[in-house]
């Protein structure tokens, strides 16, 4: 099997096989091939090789692949909301850890009052959700926060500042946390086309307010 000396045409033969030539180029190649035995032979070989290669296509499970493809999310919105959600979660996490620290602070107080009967406080002081939620899961009497502890809480949280991306943040109080949670819910409910919502913009300033 000889190589045709016309390297340009030889280079185009695979494109002829795959119908990737424009009409003008194709006419030129066809005309050459019609008068060139070497190119006709090579073209036949290329067609056979192409068919051979394509005949050994491994079977794949198309439905399985499609099922694994995630739904599309617009990149601009994703990065923006992703950032805000991450920031909000960081704030929640920071808030959570401050609750732990807070509870650690007040622990001696409650411990010292643990001798009190569980019914000592018939009308429990309404504590902030922050302090109430973790306690609710505890079966011990400490579920009922005692006045001194709850009064101490704001003082402790006012003292404590948490380092946050680009600034410091005071502990979240009840209102701030509730507002933050509402903001996060809004983020999740946003349609994908909604790139920026003014409703979520003021998060950072709001939490900085003591």
């Amino acid at each position, binding site marked *: *099997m000889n*190589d045709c000396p016309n390297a340009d045409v030889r*280079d*185009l033969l*695979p*494109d002829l*096989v*795959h*119908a*990737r*030539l*424009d*009409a003008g*180029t194709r006419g030129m190649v066809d005309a050459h091939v019609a008068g060139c035995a070497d190119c006709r032979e*090579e073209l036949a*070989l*290329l067609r*056979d*090789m*192409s068919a*051979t*290669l*394509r*005949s*050994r*296509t*491994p*079977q*794949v*499970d*198309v*439905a*399985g*692949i*499609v099922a*694994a*493809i*995630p*739904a*599309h999310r*617009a*990149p601009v919105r994703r990065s923006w909301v992703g950032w805000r959600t991450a920031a909000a979660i960081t704030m929640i996490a920071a808030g959570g850890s401050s609750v732990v620290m807070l509870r650690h602070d007040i622990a001696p107080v409650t411990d010292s009052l643990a001798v009190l009967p569980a019914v000592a406080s018939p009308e429990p002081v309404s504590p902030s959700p922050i302090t109430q939620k973790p306690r609710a899961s505890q079966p011990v009497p400490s579920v009922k926060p005692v006045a001194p502890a709850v009064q101490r809480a704001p003082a402790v949280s006012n003292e404590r500042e948490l380092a946050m991306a680009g600034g410091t943040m005071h502990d979240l109080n009840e209102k701030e946390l509730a507002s933050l949670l509402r903001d996060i819910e809004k983020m999740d409910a946003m349609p994908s086309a909604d790139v920026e919502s003014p409703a979520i913009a003021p998060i950072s300033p709001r939490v900085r307010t003591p």
Partner: protein
Amino acid sequence: MSDVAEGADEQSDLDLINRWKGGDQRAATLLVERHAGSVARFAASVGAKGDVQDIVQDTFVRAFASIDSFRGDSSLRTWLFTIARRLLLDLRRSERRRGAQVEVQDGDAVTEYDALDSVVADETRQRMHLAMARLSKTQREVFTLRVGEGLSYKEIAAVADTTEGAARVHYHNAMRAIKEFLDE
């Protein structure tokens, strides 16, 4: 050369991508149906064996996950090949690190490549398989993309991380080796 026939195809790839972005899951199915065979063939030609399905699936998952970075400068198929090749290289690299598998060298290519389908009824095709098996990995990859998939040298260069000139040389060396084998 220009992309006449397959250029029209790529236009509708973009249409399907946009339809999928708009929430049309059927468009994803059409795109996978259209290209999964090519990606599987290519993956097998560059060394995927039992893990072809995984490679092809990961390729599509990654492609769709970062579809916004696909600008349509290249064809979708070329882009998919590029992703598949990278996945396969990463996989083989991590396998080597774990010592699970030693990469098959070019000299071992006959057994590796031929084992893919030992039952080839047609004697001519059997000879062609053997001819392909004798190529170096790079020659086989380039030849598969050029002859089996009809990619241009420019597209091959993008997929195989080489230059157009090198792709052309690999193709012609492969063609010469195949002709010599078949003439024997």
